[in-house]
């Protein structure tokens, strides 16, 4: 299939957005590479949509600049920016058929009829909606509407595609399916994807890189592995996956629940050990979640493989928690978000 022009890089340079006195985006600098799948991840109100809207041209930039392919786009109106955009809720044109929706950006650009028809067919095939071309949006399921929105946003071969929580309205199973399709389409078209979500699992499985945001600021940028294995702050460790925080001599270490081994009291071995009592056991299918109470320390969460170990633990059992030095990562605290991160 015709890949169209490849993606293009986007640079945010110290971008700030203020609504009156309230700062929604606070000095964000980001270097988005051509063709990458970049995810903006953060709790509600962290400024993800605002950042995307400034890039799309629907919000003014209060301070800073956005460069696309090296040139500032601050003064370019949205229709001249040539970004595809998939809105939350899809925003399909209700009075047009699927075919008309997908053809719209091409008709606006006065492409020849034959080219439009061919391109629409190609897009319909890509999102597997060939049979539904003559339906109206309200005759489609949520997942189908989502795919129409995607096809419409990609039909004019934009070099950047912006997606604002495009899967938010889909149920879990469908979401996983569409995630795979999205990833597949990204690989095929080579467009730069900028994807907004507050679903950490989605961010982990789809992205080349993730930007963790909080309160309008960038907390950390990196590949999923980097962010999961080497979070730099308490917030990052807590927002992407779960984490325990071990305080030791004024330092804080993040420790993932699945990197802890559990032994019967007195039988422990490893570089770090803590004795405790099992407070609760939750069976989660693949894993068993143990909440272990340790003296002078917040309760520690441990995940162990459930297979064959479901009977090995009981409540109020005395255990010893052990982990190696490389299982823990030192993080910065102090942004006051230790407690809030999990609930977001």
């Amino acid at each position, binding site marked *: 299939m015709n890949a169209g022009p490849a993606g293009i890089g986007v640079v945010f340079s110290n971008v700030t957005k203020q609504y009156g006195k309230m700062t929604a985006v606070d000095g964000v600098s980001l270097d988005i590479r051509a063709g990458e799948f970049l995810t903006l991840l953060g709790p509600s109100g962290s400024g993800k949509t605002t950042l995307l809207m400034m890039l*799309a*041209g*629907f919000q003014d930039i209060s301070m800073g600049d956005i460069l696309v392919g090296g040139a500032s786009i601050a003064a370019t*109106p*949205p*229709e001249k*920016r*040539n*970004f*595809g*955009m998939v*809105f*939350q*809720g899809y*925003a*399909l*044109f*209700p*009075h047009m058929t699927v075919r008309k929706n997908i053809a*719209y*950006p091409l008709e*606006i*650009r006065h492409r020849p009829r034959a080219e439009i028809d061919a391109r629409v067919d190609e897009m319909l095939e890509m999102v597997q909606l060939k049979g539904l071309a003559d339906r109206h949006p309200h005759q489609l399921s949520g997942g189908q509407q989502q795919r129409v929105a995607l096809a*419409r*946003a990609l039909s*004019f071969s934009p070099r950047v595609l*912006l997606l604002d929580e495009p899967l938010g309205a889909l149920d879990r199973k469908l979401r996983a399916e569409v995630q795979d399709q999205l990833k597949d389409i990204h690989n095929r078209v080579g467009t730069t994807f900028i994807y907004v979500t507050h679903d950490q699992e989605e961010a982990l499985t789809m992205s080349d890189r993730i930007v963790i945001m909080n309160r309008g600021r960038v907390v950390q940028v990196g590949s999923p592995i980097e962010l999961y294995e080497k979070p730099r702050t308490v917030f990052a460790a807590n927002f992407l996956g779960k984490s325990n925080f071990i305080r030791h001599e004024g330092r804080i270490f993040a420790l993932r629940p699945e990197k802890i081994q559990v032994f019967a009291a007195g039988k422990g071995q490893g570089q770090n050990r803590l004795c405790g009592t099992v407070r609760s056991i939750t069976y989660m299918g693949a894993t068993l979640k143990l909440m272990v109470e340790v003296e002078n320390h917040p309760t520690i969460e441990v995940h162990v493989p459930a297979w064959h170990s479901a009977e090995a633990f009981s409540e109020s059992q005395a255990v010893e928690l052990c982990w190696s030095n490389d299982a823990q990562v030192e993080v910065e605290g102090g942004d006051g978000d230790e407690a809030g991160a999990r609930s977001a």
Partner: protein
Amino acid sequence: MTARSSRFNPYWLLVAPAVLLVLALYVAPIVNVLLLSVTDPKPGFDNYAKIFQSDTVAGLLWRTVRLCLITTVAAVTLGYIVSYAMLHALSHVRRRMMSILLISFWISVLVRSFAWLMLLGHNGLVNDALLGLGLISEPLPLMRNELGVLIGMTEYMVPYAILPLLANMQGIDPRVSSASRSLGASHAQTFFRVFLPLTRPGIIAASLLVFISSLGFYVTPAILGGGKVQMIAEYISVQLLVTVRWGVAAMLATLMIASVLALMYVLNRFMKLSVVFGGATR
């Protein structure tokens, strides 16, 4: 409908007084009008034949329809502009606009027509201002003619056009317009290709509503037309009170009721009536 509906429902007894009242005070006189139109002065359809035979009646009907159509186009166009502005206004501005709109419903048509009289007369504010500015050398004939009637009717009908239009526009997802812009369409292209088609139900509803309501205009043509621009309602009253030709009056009244009912039927096909009158969308 289930089988149960065929049985007598005792709750009908509770609404019976209201139903009887409506029948006695509303339906009975209308039926009476209907009967009059085919019995006075003698039984038959002579009164209805006048539509085609009498130049006066035909001219009257044509003038009424023409003025109502022009009023409809003007009021819906102006109403569309105001609704569009209200939709995009800041919320506190929109609230203020809404209350002005509601207040305008409470000002009687008589008062408004006299106000226009002050503005549009030979020595009215408009002509004085234009003369004073040197833009015209003698007063424009702004009233005692169809123009005056149209101005008065349009001004009265604009709020009626705004309500269904605004209800319709508020039901449109604003992201749809943003989506259009992001796909490369300018402001104007977005308006004509996306927004305007989506407001079609609102335009149809507003047009029918304005047209139906303006058919019955009586005070405005009488005052601003200065007796020279008779519309159907004024003519009916003259037939009743002056020339005492009740049959013709009844025929015209019947014609009007029938047209209104037919238009209401069409209106209801396009949009639930509750929506037209500002209820929830869809």
